[in-house]
């Protein structure tokens, strides 16, 4: 069993995971209200997942409808660990993710919420990039000749034209709808889309907001659906269980018999990866892991890859 290196996507810190590994009974540790499907293998999970044969078994158990908390799935959790967002500011569903943006995100009243994922605000204010101790507005005024009681009362200061003042007041600068309000953010802070896979008996749902890039999504889906594909791609079997490496993931999804597609707002099925990530999260309505044989019209590139491999 491997110790997960990354934070798993449901926001457990590294300290918590060892305890996860020990106990296979910890089903409720994560409060996964928002996921609809709860999947996991009977008994201990990860070692079985690493075993091809047992994956077949696990398929059957899935079929039989056994539903388990994700905590089961996560026991020993190497395979079920998803890397989280690409940087600070990504907001796990279940617990605040630490990480003010280092690139200047800040908690403006009315300003941006943070990360690339547009995931709404953190449940606590994002860490402000503090450079140096700011001279407090009311302190060390020096012996300024005038010391106004408060800035707001000084007429015409700072010298900003009325038009600009009124414009900013009426529409406070912000990047996302709603700002600073954790409750408001939660509602709009998730972007669940269904993920189907050709040949799999059931669908999954993923929250696109928690991923920062295509790579992250790809890894996550790979891990999610690996049980279905192992039988077909034996040569890409899970390695020693140190977590799925990225190249293997890409191989599996792009190099083998499957391509990842999505349905956009127009209802068209598109190949995942063409547009910038942020745009993709906006447009994507659902995902489908498609057999590349079916993706002929859609993804000629994938077809070629497939040919190259066989």
């Amino acid at each position, binding site marked *: 069993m491997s110790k997960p290196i990354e934070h798993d996507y449901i926001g457990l810190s590294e300290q918590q995971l060892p305890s996860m590994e020990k106990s296979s009974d910890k089903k409720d540790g994560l409060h996964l209200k928002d996921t609809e499907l709860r999947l996991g293998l009977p008994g201990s999970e990860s070692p079985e997942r690493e075993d091809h044969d047992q994956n077949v078994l696990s398929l059957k158990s899935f079929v039989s409808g056994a539903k388990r908390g994700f905590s089961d799935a996560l026991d020993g959790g190497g395979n079920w660990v998803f890397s989280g967002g690409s940087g600070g500011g990504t907001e796990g569903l279940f617990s605040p993710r630490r990480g003010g943006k280092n690139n200047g995100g800040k908690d403006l*009243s009315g300003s941006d919420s943070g990360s690339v994922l547009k995931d709404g605000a953190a449940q606590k204010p994002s860490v402000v990039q503090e450079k140096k101790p700011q001279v407090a507005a009311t302190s060390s005024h020096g012996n300024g000749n005038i010391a106004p009681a408060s800035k707001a009362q000084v007429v015409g200061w700072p010298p900003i034209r009325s038009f600009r003042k009124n414009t900013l007041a009426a529409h406070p600068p912000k990047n996302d709808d709603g700002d600073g309000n954790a409750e408001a953010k939660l509602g709009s802070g998730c972007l669940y889309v269904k993920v189907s896979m050709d040949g799999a008996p059931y669908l999954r749902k993923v929250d696109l907001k928690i991923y920062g890039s295509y790579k992250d999504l790809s890894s996550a889906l790979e891990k999610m659906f690996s049980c279905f594909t192992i039988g077909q791609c034996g040569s890409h079997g899970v390695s020693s269980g140190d977590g799925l490496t990225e190249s293997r993931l890409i191989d599996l999804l792009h190099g083998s018999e499957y391509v990842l597609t999505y349905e956009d707002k127009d209802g068209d099925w598109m190949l995942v990866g063409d547009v910038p990530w942020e745009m993709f999260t906006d447009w994507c309505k659902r995902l489908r892991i498609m057999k590349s044989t079916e993706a002929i019209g859609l993804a000629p590139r994938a077809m070629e890859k497939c040919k190259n491999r066989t």
Partner: protein
Amino acid sequence: MEPSELKRSKDSPNSDESTRRSSFPDEVLERVLSLLKSHRDRSSVSLVCKDWYNAERWSRTHVFIGNCYSVSPEIVARRFPKIRSVTLKGKPRFSDFNLVPENWGADIHAWLVVFAAKYPFLEELRLKRMAISDESLEFLAVSFPNFKALSLLSCDGFSTNGLAAIATHCKNLTELDIQENGIDDKGGSWLSCFPESFTSLEVLNFANLSSDINFDALERLVGRCKSMRVLKLNRSVSLEQLQRLLVNAPQLAELGTGSFSEELTFRQYVELESALSNCQNMHTLYGLWDAKGIYLPALYPVCTHLTFLNLSYAALRSDELAKLLAHCPRLKRLWVLDTVEDKGLEAVGLNCPLLEELRVFPADPFDEEIIHGVTEAGFVAVSFGCPRLHYVLYFCRQMTNAAVATIVQNCPDFTHFRLCIMNPGQPDYITNEPMDEAFGAVVKTCTKLQRLSVSGRLTDLTFEYIGRYAKNLETLSVAFAGSSDWGMQCVMGGCSKLRKLEIRDCPFGNAALLSGLEKYESMRSLWMSACNVTMNGCRLLAREMPRLNVEVMKEDGSDDSQADKVYVYRSIAGPRRDAPPSVLTL
């Protein structure tokens, strides 16, 4: 061409007028002078001799009046019979910040009446800080059949009804530029008043207005005005509508987008990007209200040839700005909000080596609690990357003397240095010293400095530096600074080219005011508010200098002897007769 000709003729002896007249007929002189555009050159020319004065006045077609009360419309009309274009400025600049009473004056109507009689072929009117009513706009619209260009900046007193009159009657209109005015927005129907046969518009700027306009009317208007090169939309125009407009106007050189934030489908996004990429002439981009970072890549095709990017209404983060600027290598002018923070400004320094002008506006100027925005670090970063920087307007909450010294060392060519440390009287936040040395460094290093705005905690030493070194300074703005009369005296004594001085909340009193006695006639104006000037001091000034108008604005409930707000300006028109009761002319 003509400047060298003029130089030769200036150098030749002009004492013998008859000889000169025979060798240099008036008609030739007029023809030559008609090529002179700069009003300063023309003023110089008119002082050479009487012949030149006459030739110049007959050939002048554009008049610039920096203070509408320095002269009367009758005097202007008498001197310049052939004017086609007028630029007129009214209220003191501090009226932008609500320091001037509402009904102070600067009404355009009296001017229009004279112009209608004397300049029936008037084509252009550009007004700044004037009061203009709907009746005046209607009068303008019907009185001048050749009228082509109307530009209103920071004016007030009118509504969209006035704009409707302009649109209805001005058949030859090429320019309608409505910027940052106190306008009563009664709706967008004015835009539909342009007749269907109207095709001459080249410049349309209605970004100031907030209400919805009839988009179909706008689309048709843009479609048939094939010479349109400047289009600045208001916030009510959506991205999708923008795309439709751009498809019909790829020739645009300047674009102010509407709102940049609605939800777009992938297809709409691609179409927008495509429409923008067809605009090969576009060098200026404004607007981008509420810009969403994810749509900014649509601008990339345009960015490569942009020279002016105004993001001061788009609250971008540093990463969003950085990504955008990576595509803007030719940028010369950049306006941003301080939401981009120092990191965003670092990106400016890295990506825009040709930058000449930077303005950083505060997104949240009135909230003291929030710690954000830009600091000295951002400014320094820009200075390292942009050696050609010569115009800066920078709002920040902290600054150091050392940083400013570094900045001007990197950029010694500043002509306009406007630094606003938003907390009044704030010292260098590291050393706790006054910011004297910062501005000292500016005036010592930047010999071309024309305009300076100071802030932070400043003693008289700052003004000693200014008086001693800022020999090209023309405009100086001072707030919450100085220790005694000596400071202002240094400025009055040392800055020989000073034209505009505006001071608020400083400990300068009568001695300081009166030290400029000789100087005010060579200046356009002086403003002093919340200083230590008394009524007696003002009366003395008025008595000694009859060609100055000395106006005092009293505030309710203030001490009778204090002169709360003083506005002094030279005038050949005498004291004005339209001052409201709160304004006393001494």
